[in-house]
């Protein structure tokens, strides 16, 4: 156990109740230490507990067993200090707010002044390529566009800890790769901690310092793979043999499940 770790996940288990009152064992004894400024990915098959783990870290869910420490305090305290920025698996936009105002939402909450709000909104919408849609309502957007609004909203916070749950799953490969790079650029400038849920192995390799592979039923940590590719990473790195070998290493640890 590393005392200096920014996020300590200690033997976390999670049981849900099904509608007959039986336990569904979603996570089993997961322990991970995450360093400050680290970019870590959670990888695993559908239903293995990635979202569950993320929600526990974000204090949206209490673990049934075990404990999570974030910045030396409870997740709740961290949450109360507004240190989290979360991209949810479904975009969770507010129907009554336009794109612009959905992104503005957390900024209002953080008492950021209006001009700063506007400039951040501009910047993030630019980043995700939605500048022309800023006055649209969510129901007027395509699925991928909605997801991008959710990304812009989380990035606009410039959070200490960025939790992203399959943020790019609804995006085409090009937008995805572009946003991968943008994300890395932002991250390297600000040195925030990122926990990134994905089911795309090469994405996880491209982005992360470490990749945590979860196996399902119940969700267990089956491997942690260090990604020792140099940074800054650019598009070209995807073509290198090191990259491929890491991808297949992970794929194997995955398949071994």
């Amino acid at each position: 156990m590393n005392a200096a770790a920014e996020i300590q996940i200690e033997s976390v288990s999670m049981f849900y109740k099904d509608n007959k009152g039986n336990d569904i064992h979603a996570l089993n004894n997961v322990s991970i230490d995450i360093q400050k400024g680290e970019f870590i990915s959670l990888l695993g098959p559908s239903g293995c507990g990635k979202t569950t783990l993320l929600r526990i870290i974000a204090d949206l869910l209490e673990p049934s067993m075990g404990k999570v420490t974030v910045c030396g305090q409870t997740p709740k305290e961290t949450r109360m200090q507004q240190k989290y920025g979360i991209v949810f698996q479904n975009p969770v936009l507010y129907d009554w707010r336009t794109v612009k105002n959905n992104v503005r939402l957390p900024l209002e909450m953080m008492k950021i002044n209006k001009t700063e709000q506007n400039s951040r909104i501009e910047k993030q919408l630019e980043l995700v390529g939605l500048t022309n849609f800023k006055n649209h309502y969510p129901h007027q957007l395509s699925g991928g566009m909605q997801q991008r609004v959710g990304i812009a909203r989380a990035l606009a916070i410039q959070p200490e800890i960025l939790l992203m749950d399959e943020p790019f799953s609804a995006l085409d490969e090009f937008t995805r790769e572009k946003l991968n790079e943008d994300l890395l650029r932002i991250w390297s400038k600000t040195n925030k901690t990122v926990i990134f849920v994905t089911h795309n192995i090469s994405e996880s390799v491209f982005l992360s310092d470490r990749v945590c592979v979860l196996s399902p039923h119940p969700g267990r940590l089956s491997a942690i793979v260090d990604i020792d590719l140099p940074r800054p990473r650019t598009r070209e790195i995807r073509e290198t043999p090191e990259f491929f070998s890491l991808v297949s290493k992970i794929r194997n640890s995955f398949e071994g499940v």
Partner: protein
Amino acid sequence: MNKNKTLVLLVWFAGIFALWELGAFSLVNIFHDKMAASKLPYPHEVIATLAKNWQTLSEAGAVTFSKAATGFALGASIGIILAILMSISKIAEQIAFPYLIVSQMIPVLGLAPIIFNLVRNMDASRIIIAAYITFFPVAANMLSGLKSVDIDKRELMYSYAAKKPSIYMKLMLPFSLPYLFSGLKIAAPLSVTASILVDMLGSKNGIGVKLLYSLYGGTKDIFWASVFTSALMGIISYFIVIIAERIFIPWKKEFNTKAGED
């Protein structure tokens, strides 16, 4: 209802009781209001009267309540049917809704003779009048539920070329159940009101009769005890709807309230 909620409810009623008691006390002793007994009688006295006359009041209440149930059943059914018709066709809604509002503006005093002439039977007229008073909130709520159905959920049905009956049975109705139940929660106590009003249209018994006679006969204590009884019936009817809601909406198991706030 679990024990906790019962307790909460008890605290509520105790609180209201105490407040009321205080109000009555100050009316008598601070404001020296000579109308105190009819403005705000001591609730303990009302309850004492209620207890003393429990036999007659509960009998009268039962008569009214059973009529309310009939009126409610009919009114709610009409409300649901109207809402469905209005949701099937926008034109129907545009035609009907304004006239439903108009219909609600006709007081029973003007309506009763017309209804009687229609059905030529006093008991039937009474049930219709009770239904007439009850149906509107059900229709309005149900309609707003039917109109709130997510568009993608509708499209799924549409893609199966589903016929109207299955669209309604499998999508529209289940979806709008929570809305319907809101309407029923409003309508259930209202049906007690309606039934009381119908009592007053020349019935021989019922809590409405007690209310009217005691009001005009100067028996203030019975009047207030009857008011309490009708309120109590309202609460009972409300709880019946709540229980029905639990039974009919099992999938809505508070997964929204789980994530509390700080």
